[in-house]
């Protein structure tokens, strides 16, 4: 596993938090919600292969 993906996810988290703050200050709750959701989706897209790897190794360990 590449460790840089962890830092990337952390950076996206920070930036989305800042965007969220800025948009909410300007009274645009809808767009703030959307950016949060978009950030979540992007991160999920990155992480999904590691999750599937985890499931596969769990299956392998317990012989399921």
């Amino acid at each position, binding site marked *: 596993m590449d460790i840089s993906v962890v830092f990337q996810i952390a950076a*996206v988290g920070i930036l989305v938090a800042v*965007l969220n703050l800025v*948009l909410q200050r*300007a009274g645009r709750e809808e767009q703030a919600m959307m950016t949060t959701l978009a950030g979540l989706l992007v991160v999920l897209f990155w992480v999904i292969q590691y999750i599937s790897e985890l499931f596969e190794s769990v299956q392998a360990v317990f012989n399921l």
Partner: protein
Amino acid sequence: MTLIRVIGVALTLVASGVLGLYLSGLGKFRLQDLLEFKKALLILKSEIEYVATPLPEAMANISVRTTKPISLIFEHYSQSLKNNSEGETAYQLWIASIKIHKQKSFLKDDDWEIIENFGKTLGYLDKQMQVDTITFTTDYIDAQVSKLQEINEKNQRMYRSLGVVGGILLLVIFW
């Protein structure tokens, strides 16, 4: 490889920053254009009330006393009124002048609708009718201006930080 990366990073940051600045400026530019149009209307009102200048000359006077891009509309309108050989109405010519110079200003479609409506009564019926229409249009502009001034400050700060943070976010996502 690193050089290309650095150039890409710089370009993305600059582009998103400039986009943020442009979006934050839109409200200010619209405000300026609205105020300029109001000035033009006030000049026209005085021309009608005190001097009773014919419409083409009044429009030419306005175009001299206002700044671009609003002055371009009045200049074109004055010219087309003077050279009107096809027998088109003042309203048709007004619409045509607006269409040509619409792209150069920052006004929104709502504003253009009111401005186009204003053209409907140009040169129609008596002095009082003209003055009333002008007052109606300036009232609309005043309402828009006070609304804009309220939200401009907030939006400007938002778009500026949105541009920069959005650029950095793009960089992180496509790293």
